[in-house]
């Protein structure tokens, strides 16, 4: 039985940062990932990372922008910590070797981003996430005291009798063997759940595994209704065009050639926060002023060619390879598309959940620094700041903890369960069918605009799919790289995520951030300036509430 002080599950930015931080505190650390770490979805963060590093800027300004961006649902104590620690985090990364873009003086260069009152986004062309991920992986290769379990799939978390976390059950994807890991602390860094939507900018691996595993053992999920639709995704495939494009000056037009953001955000225009821009686009499209493929146009040609090549190279490739469009010469069609979950596993500012020894960081966590709407380039920051804080805190907290002895029964249960899935006679429906139905349903009813009727339909579909998922067909009977059985497990994780999202969206009877209810179109601070949390009760999510922490900013009307 592999044994570690700190076991990190997920090896994107949050996970790798947590592992390095825990190792730095002298803990023995294992890091498990269902894909090779550099395949993680942190790669896809193109635009950059926010920090008030410039002496002209201030962390308070960054924090206020984040609070306002969150539509006042973000917890201000956590936001303050994130924004205060941001400059140090950027410098640490730079010192480790991240190749941040420089200005003419050779100092860190920055670009503008949405919802920000100053240009404070630091970047590596438009491969920022990839560049940081690869540099952290360089450090993992250097520090071999962090033990890497690459291509291992975690199926469940294990607790002691007293409720403290004791480890996790995993499957080695390469040979199909099951293993019980013992750990004094477990940090979940498993990323988002975008795959519950179709289309989505998220990778196929973003199936909300950690969110579901934590929920199943009774860790509360928070703000699950807050699902971000990114304003510039490609129709059909849902691939992302970075907000950096608008940061560099690109403009949005409807099919009538009107720069419509003038109507919705006369001051910030295309650089209003994402929920605002996505709603504006969807309003235009729904009013018949979009293109026949249900899109609006993003015009990048206004950005000088030299600058496009230097700073937006990746989306030149995306346009060329996936839309057949040369964005340096013509506008590209875009629409709002599923991108990010602001909600997740509820944690305190150290990343710890109410379950002793269980931590969460990054997109799977909800601290909550994003509240109702995340600002562009705050997600990388969130992963790094709270990844590091979780790693440090977990390592220090378990120094006196005796080695846990997770019950072998947990391993045998999971083995039996997976064996039963593989051994199933032919099921009624295929994993892919169920997944497709879930994705289309969520994108139809739990999207930019929502209402009670649609949400009820979505809930009904999700609950039916949960039933059907227990009996899906499995073609692959093998042990080596049996992706089929993992797909079935992921589907069940996804359905738990979706159910919590829909139930929370039904509960919040107001419009705030990414949750816009056409039947409750106003923000209602009196009744709803609070987090919705869910816990499993008899297999169904049970609602409770949690206060929003306000420090220095009282809710105001939000205009851009």
């Amino acid at each position, binding site marked *: 039985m592999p044994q570690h002080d700190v076991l990190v599950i997920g090896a994107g930015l949050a996970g790798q940062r947590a592992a390095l931080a825990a190792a730095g505190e002298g803990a023995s650390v294992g890091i498990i990932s269902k894909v090779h770490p550099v395949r993680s979805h942190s790669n896809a963060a193109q635009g950059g990372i926010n920090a008030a590093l410039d002496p002209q800027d201030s962390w308070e300004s960054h924090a206020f922008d984040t609070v306002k961006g969150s539509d006042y649902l973000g917890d201000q104590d956590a936001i303050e910590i994130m924004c205060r620690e941001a400059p140090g985090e950027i410098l640490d990364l730079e010192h480790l070797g991240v190749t941040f873009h420089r200005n003419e003086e050779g*100092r860190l260069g920055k670009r503008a981003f949405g919802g920000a009152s100053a240009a404070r986004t630091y970047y590596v062309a438009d491969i920022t996430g990839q560049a940081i991920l690869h540099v952290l992986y360089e450090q993992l290769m250097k520090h071999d005291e962090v033990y890497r379990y690459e291509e291992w799939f975690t199926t469940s978390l294990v607790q002691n009798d007293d409720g403290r976390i004791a480890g996790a059950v995993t499957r080695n994807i390469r040979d199909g063997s099951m293993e019980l890991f013992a750990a004094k602390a477990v940090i979940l860094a498993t990323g988002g759940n975008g795959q519950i939507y179709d289309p989505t900018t998220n990778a196929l691996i973003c199936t909300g595994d950690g969110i579901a595993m934590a929920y199943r053992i009774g860790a509360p999920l928070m703000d699950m209704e807050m699902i971000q639709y990114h304003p510039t995704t490609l129709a059909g495939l849902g691939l992302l065009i970075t907000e950096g494009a608008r940061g560099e000056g690109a403009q949005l037009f409807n099919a009538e050639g009107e720069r419509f953001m003038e109507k919705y955000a006369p001051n910030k225009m295309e650089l209003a926060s994402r929920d605002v821009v996505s709603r504006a686009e969807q309003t235009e499209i729904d009013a018949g002023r979009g293109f026949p493929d249900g899109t609006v146009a993003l015009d990048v040609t206004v950005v000088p060619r030299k600058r496009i090549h230097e700073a937006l190279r990746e989306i030149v490739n995306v346009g060329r390879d996936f839309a057949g469009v040369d964005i340096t010469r013509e506008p590209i069609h875009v629409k709002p598309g599923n991108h990010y979950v602001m909600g997740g596993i509820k944690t305190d500012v150290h990343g710890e959940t109410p379950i002793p020894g269980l931590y969460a960081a990054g997109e799977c966590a909800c601290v909550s620094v994003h509240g109702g709407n995340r600002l562009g380039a705050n997600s990388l920051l969130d992963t790094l700041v709270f990844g590091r804080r979780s790693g440090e805190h977990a390592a220090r907290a378990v120094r006196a903890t005796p080695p846990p002895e997770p019950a072998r029964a947990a391993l045998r249960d999971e083995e039996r369960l997976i064996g039963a899935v593989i051994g199933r006679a032919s099921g009624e429906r295929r994993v892919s069918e169920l997944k497709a139905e879930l994705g289309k349903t969520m994108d139809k009813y739990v999207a930019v605009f929502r209402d009670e009727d649609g949400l009820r339909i979505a809930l009904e579909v999700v609950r039916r799919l949960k039933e059907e998922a227990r009996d899906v067909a499995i073609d692959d*009977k093998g042990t080596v790289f049996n992706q089929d059985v993992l797909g079935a497990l992921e589907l069940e994780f996804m359905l738990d995520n979706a159910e919590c999202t829909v139930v929370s969206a039904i509960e919040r009877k107001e419009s705030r951030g990414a949750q816009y209810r056409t039947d409750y179109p106003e923000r209602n601070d009196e009744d709803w300036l609070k987090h919705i949390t869910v816990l499993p009760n008899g297999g169904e999510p049970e609602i409770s509430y949690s206060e929003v922490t306000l420090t220095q900013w009282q809710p105001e009307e939000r205009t851009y």
Partner: protein
Amino acid sequence: MPDYQLKIRRFDPESGEAAYWADYTAELPPERSVLDGILQVKDREDASIGIRCSCRAAICGSCGVRINGRSRLACNTKIGDAAAGARDGAITVEPMGNMPVIKDLITDMEAVHWKKVQRIVPWLLPAEEPPEGREYTVPAEAMLDVTQAMACIHCGVCVSACLSMEVDPDFIGPAALAKAYRFVGDPRDGEQETRLRDLAEDPHGIYDCTHCFACVEVCPKDVAPMDQIMRLRRRAGSDFDIKDSNNGYGHEKAFVNIVEKWGTNHEAQLLPRSFGDGSLVKGQLRPSGARQLTAELPTAFRGLRSGKVSPRKALLHPKLPDQKQVRRIFKEIESKGERLELNMYIVGESGGEEEGVMAEGGGEA
């Protein structure tokens, strides 16, 4: 919607059987990807087909395979283009080359690629302690210069296509060497000379690349690994004057000198000049050069006997008719005060107004 025939190379390590081809049909628009085709087959017909994939957008680097024999990412290969390039109408999809196969289209990247990455000491070795409370000051161009190597997604497609690695499996290879340039080109790194000396002296290092362009052609991210290897060579040879014991430096110098003089390669002089850092006289006078030349004599005799080389060809090598033009290029380049390294992020002063991005390495099968 058109039907596409997919011929997928299957291998089940648990069956005890050899790999085999299996035929499938996918139905989707031509602009969708080969990966979409494979996923559709998995979804509808046989979910046991093994392929790593995640982002669908050529960012994560998971889905490297060979399509119609050519190494590429399945997600940024349009299925219509692949069909147009297929023999017998069926698109063939098989695992990448130069790596062991684990199952179906899944290869062991760990055993080959990541081992080679580990070999190049893949982390920054800063020259000095980081400045207190601020970043290192670094020229903007230097960061853009290494960003091309940073753009590598470690998909292994270049490793799969590398012809040198096929002959010498120990060759460090295009991806890992491109990664090495990311440190050698980074002004913050303090061990550039040590790194270069190490990679030049390693017989499987920078001079083991045969300059065949295969990696440049297949790289889905325009990293142009061979260009990065050439940068390493330029730094090693011109900036640090590293003359390696394998004569990689001498060989390159000899080649350049010969082309300057004759315009085309003068085979008979390449070897002796290689042993003399490019100079014919030095190559023959140096004891080490003379010793190595003598050792190579049997090869020369074999060439003579088989008729591949004739005494006439060996001694007389004609200049190109307009050799002056070649010299002019040499003069032009040598007149520059410093070396200007362009890459995909730095496209020259004007931004290359005339050529569009669609022309650059756009994806046909």
